[in-house]
């Protein structure tokens, strides 16, 4: 149970991109020491072929994060079709040490009856669904990125119990496919992909024929080109029952991003000032917050705070 007066939780989402083993490990080691996040999601959610690259490091990274007082949650795969993918979900669910985030219905099945987290790739669009999952043991629900603020508030109001989380920073996961467009764009088949997605640690930018940046390929996943940044909206969301905010790792100073969000949540930094600083931290990433306002997700609504307040 989380009540609105408790301090909102800042959580670092699972690393969406394919970072090499040691890079991956060092990224988390640094964050363990420097980033004011309360919780960290670990695990490969996008492509099971990448799992062997991080598995050898998960235990030491989890230990290091816990050592600096952060809770660790293990994230499951999003698209589960192969035998080894099913096994990976089963094994993840079988351990009792850490909370597990379900990103597919198979994980929900394996976790039913005990506390677990529900990831943004499980379709929770309304209160009845949230309440149902809560009855099955969900204590944390990260809502789908395309949900507008009106739906988020309505869900939190009508299905109290689980702690609700939204994506506050990062490229938005938009789609996942059985085929790998990323490998295909580099002239390779998925079965012999040579892990080319590791060449693009923030994804491979996709632009329109007119040269307008649009999306990014991340292996079998497609993410937004823009970086979702909820800042002016944080206080309204928190007042409406959202108690957790997710920061999705990108190749930028994530510790600084986390400090910035912490300051805004604490009321120590003005959201407008924060978005200027965020732009300086990630100069290559245009910001967006359209989804939350029921607008196209790629859009940036400059007066987000006022807009939300007007809808209250």
């Amino acid at each position, binding site marked *: 149970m989380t009540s609105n007066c408790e301090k909102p939780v800042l959580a670092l989402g699972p690393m969406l991109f394919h970072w090499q083993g040691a890079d991956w490990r060092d990224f988390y080691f640094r964050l363990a020491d420097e980033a004011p996040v309360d919780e960290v999601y670990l695990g490969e959610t996008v492509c099971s072929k990448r799992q062997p690259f991080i598995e050898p490091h998960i235990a030491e990274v989890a230990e290091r994060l816990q050592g600096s007082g952060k809770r660790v949650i293990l994230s499951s795969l*999003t*698209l*589960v*079709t192969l035998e080894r993918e*099913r096994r990976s*979900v089963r094994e993840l669910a079988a351990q009792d040490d850490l909370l597990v985030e379900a990103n*597919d*219905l*198979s994980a*929900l*099945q394996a976790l*039913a009856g005990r506390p677990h987290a529900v990831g943004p*790739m499980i*379709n929770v*669009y*309304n*209160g*009845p*669904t949230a*309440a*149902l999952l809560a009855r099955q043991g969900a204590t944390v629900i990260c809502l*789908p*990125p*395309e949900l507008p603020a*009106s*739906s988020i508030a*309505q*869900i939190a109001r*009508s299905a109290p119990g689980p702690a609700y989380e939204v994506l506050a920073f990062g490229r*938005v996961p*938009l*789609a*996942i*496919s*059985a*085929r*790998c*467009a990323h490998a295909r*764009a*580099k002239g390779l*088949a998925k*079965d012999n992909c040579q892990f080319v997605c590791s060449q693009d640690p923030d994804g491979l*930018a*996709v*632009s*329109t*024929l*007119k040269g*307008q940046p*649009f*999306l990014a*390929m991340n292996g079998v996943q*497609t993410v937004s080109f823009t970086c979702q940044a909820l800042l002016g909206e944080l206080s309204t969301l928190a007042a409406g029952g959202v108690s957790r905010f997710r920061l999705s790792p990108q190749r930028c100073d994530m510790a600084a991003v986390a400090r910035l969000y912490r300051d805004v949540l604490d009321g120590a930094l003005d959201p407008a000032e924060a978005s200027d600083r965020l732009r300086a931290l990630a100069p290559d990433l245009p910001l967006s917050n*359209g*989804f939350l306002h*029921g*607008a*196209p*997700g*790629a859009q940036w609504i400059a007066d987000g705070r006022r807009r939300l307040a007007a809808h209250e």
Partner: protein
Amino acid sequence: MELICPAGNSAAFREAVDAGADAVYCGFRNETNARNFPGLNFTRDEFEAAVAYARSRGVMTFVAINTFMRAGAEALWFQAVDDAVAVGADAVILADMGLMAYTADRHPEQRIHVSVQAAASNPEAVGFLADAFQAKRVVLPRVLSLPEVAKLTASVPVETEVFVFGGMCVMAEGRCSLSSYATGLSPNMNGVCSPASHVRYAKDGAAMVSELGGFAIDRFEPGEPAGYPTLCKGRFRAGGEQGHLFEDPISLDALDHLDALREAGVSALKIEGRQRGKAYVAEVVSTIRRALDAPPSARRAIVARLRSVSEGQRTTSGAYEKRWR
């Protein structure tokens, strides 16, 4: 194997029944179904007449209520299920777990089919929905290969239904927000993908550019067959490459695999296309019916004709063949 056919209006519904459908699926004229397109779908009265027509000819009617309930407006989806049950739908095709729970609770006798939008892509996921809501059938996502379809079908306590012809999603169904990223409207929330309300065709010199929500999706030289700007089938640039990077403008045709699907234990074959016209429905349904009834050796010739209906489009067996990935 049952043949499950689409209908976007009463005329197409009758054509599907007359052409040899075992079941026709349709949706109500609102955001509760995933083909919430202008001018399409059924009022309750039209639906009632359709069910009566189908029943008089021994054909079943399924109702797709397969978008995700908008928080605070759940009554619209509950009403759709209540109406479908009251009129006598043989099955409701659902994607939202909250709606499945409502249906299992209020109408325990009603047959529930799990929509492709529910993204149940493995035996555990199917088992979860079958246990929780007593679903009787699952429509499999178009991400599985034929051996995977066979394996899954053999290991779940429910029937399986697979798509064999028509439009094809490149992305896993029910888990795609590309459309709302560009337009604010999505399949899950609004029952539309790349909606016509956000489409514009613009001249660029002699060429024509199709746009969605202000993003250029494709470009056609004079005389080149044009396409609807479905986002995942557009032409883009990435890392020096230019082209249909996610998928060509292509449609699904798994009719060469009918025997393999039968051997896999699949219960029903589904034709996509509630947004297509009655002439298309009549042609596709009657041809596939003939193919199903014909000996395997005669099938290829029968279905060859259909490939022209795809109108300048090429076809693929999609994920059923592993090399597609």
